[in-house]
């Protein structure tokens, strides 16, 4: 399979530089215990192998799966059904996203339980579900994405002045963290699959931006949460 060779090459290109950089650092500047270096090399090999398998799996499985669902969506019933399904997909993949669990756990600990992990997970998941649905709605309605992004981030900036600063910090982090390596190919291919079956829409001009829009959701959600609780 030529695919495999291509992926392996890509992964080597990706991880080798950082591995070499760290090793060079170790020889020159840092003085880490040898066991740590061995652990690092093992970890780097695992990461390389893992990434190769992952990218392969994404190519064969995840991306086609997302595109299949995305391209099927417009054929099924009313807009409201589509949006509900997309909301559910966004919600479901976020609830289970490892990064979300890690982040909310940290926040729960750091805030001494004031911000409960479960509440935060739901707020983030609802935020993502809602904004992903809005992103799909935007594609259908043709409303320019630039306005939505502008509007969304303008609200984010405004809220950042009113929300307590701890919540603001967590909010901005959650926006980036919540779109992890598993959800990204899915949402990406969902958008691309979706636009591919709509007349007059192309993947390059309309298919992207879902992740960007979805990320706004948790940021606003958590800052609002902060304003309610604070």
């Amino acid at each position, binding site marked *: 399979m030529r695919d495999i060779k291509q992926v392996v090459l890509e992964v080597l290109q990706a991880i080798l530089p950082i591995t070499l950089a760290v090793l060079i650092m170790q020889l020159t500047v840092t003085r*880490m215990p040898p*066991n740590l270096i061995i652990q690092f090399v093992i970890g780097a090999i695992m990461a390389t192998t893992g990434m190769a398998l992952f990218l392969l799996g994404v190519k064969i499985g995840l991306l086609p799966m997302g595109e299949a669902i995305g391209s099927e969506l417009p054929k099924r019933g009313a807009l409201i059904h589509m949006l509900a399904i997309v909301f559910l997909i966004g919600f*479901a993949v976020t609830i289970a996203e490892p990064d979300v669990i890690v982040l909310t756990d940290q926040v729960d600990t750091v805030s001494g339980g004031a911000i409960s992990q479960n509440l935060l997970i739901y707020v983030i998941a609802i935020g993502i579900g809602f904004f992903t649905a809005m992103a799909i709605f935007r594609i259908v309605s043709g409303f320019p994405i630039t306005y939505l992004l502008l509007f969304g981030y303008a609200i984010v900036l405004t809220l950042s002045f009113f929300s307590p600063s701890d919540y603001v910090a*967590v909010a901005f982090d959650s926006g980036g963290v919540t779109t992890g390596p598993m959800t990204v190919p899915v949402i990406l291919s969902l958008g691309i699959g979706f636009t591919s079956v709509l007349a007059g829409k192309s993947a390059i001009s309309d298919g992207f931006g879902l992740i960007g829009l979805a990320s706004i959701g948790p940021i606003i959600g958590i800052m609002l949460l902060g304003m309610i609780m604070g």
Partner: protein
Amino acid sequence: MTEIVILEGAGDTFLHVLRSLLPLLFIFLVFQFLFLKLPREYVLNLVKGLLLSLVGLALFLQGVKIGFMPVGRAMGETLGTIEYKWLLIPFGFLMGFLATFSEPAVRILSDQVEKSSSSFIPKKMVLGTISIGVATLVTLGVTKIVYGIPFLYIIIPGYIVALILIWLSDRTFVSIAFDAGGVATGPMAVTFLLSMAVGIASTMDDRDPVTDGFGLIALIALAPILSIMLLGIIFGKKLKKMEEEK
């Protein structure tokens, strides 16, 4: 002598990834049986791919956790104590670039952009732009930790600039830019760069590693938004020139 840790927490990692996979699989199967009715071998292949990505991601995450996280922390701690503070700048830049360069989701996005634009926007260009953007802001973030600049002073003007750029940049690039912001904060960046930042912060008395760490992630998310939109401005000019030459 510190022990070599390889499989600690591997079970948890695997289960976490599995958990994130199940909703997807479930939704797809629902779609498949109700609507899609794709041929069986095709679906089998899809599920095979899903399993591959499950194993692959779990392996990757574990490798990053046991390899890159402690090393990042150790590097950060060492660098936080060196005399020549200015060295942190090239160092932060290099690490920021390399960590993003190795991020799987960044490559997936770059690849999709190239495919969807029929190679008009090459994958290497997207990858490079995102990596350089993150490198720049990581440098800023590291400087922020060392010199104690408040997080909001950097992030708020950053997002204001982003809003301005939305007006100026080509529409397609705006969408890609905000997507890029989401993907840059992936496991490599968040684990390695974060632990580095925490390492640096821990060597300074009045820094709170948690706040500084949190702030860095937000900067990493902002960086590609700015750099890709800047790329969009350049492309926009290029496109205009092409139109005028027609």
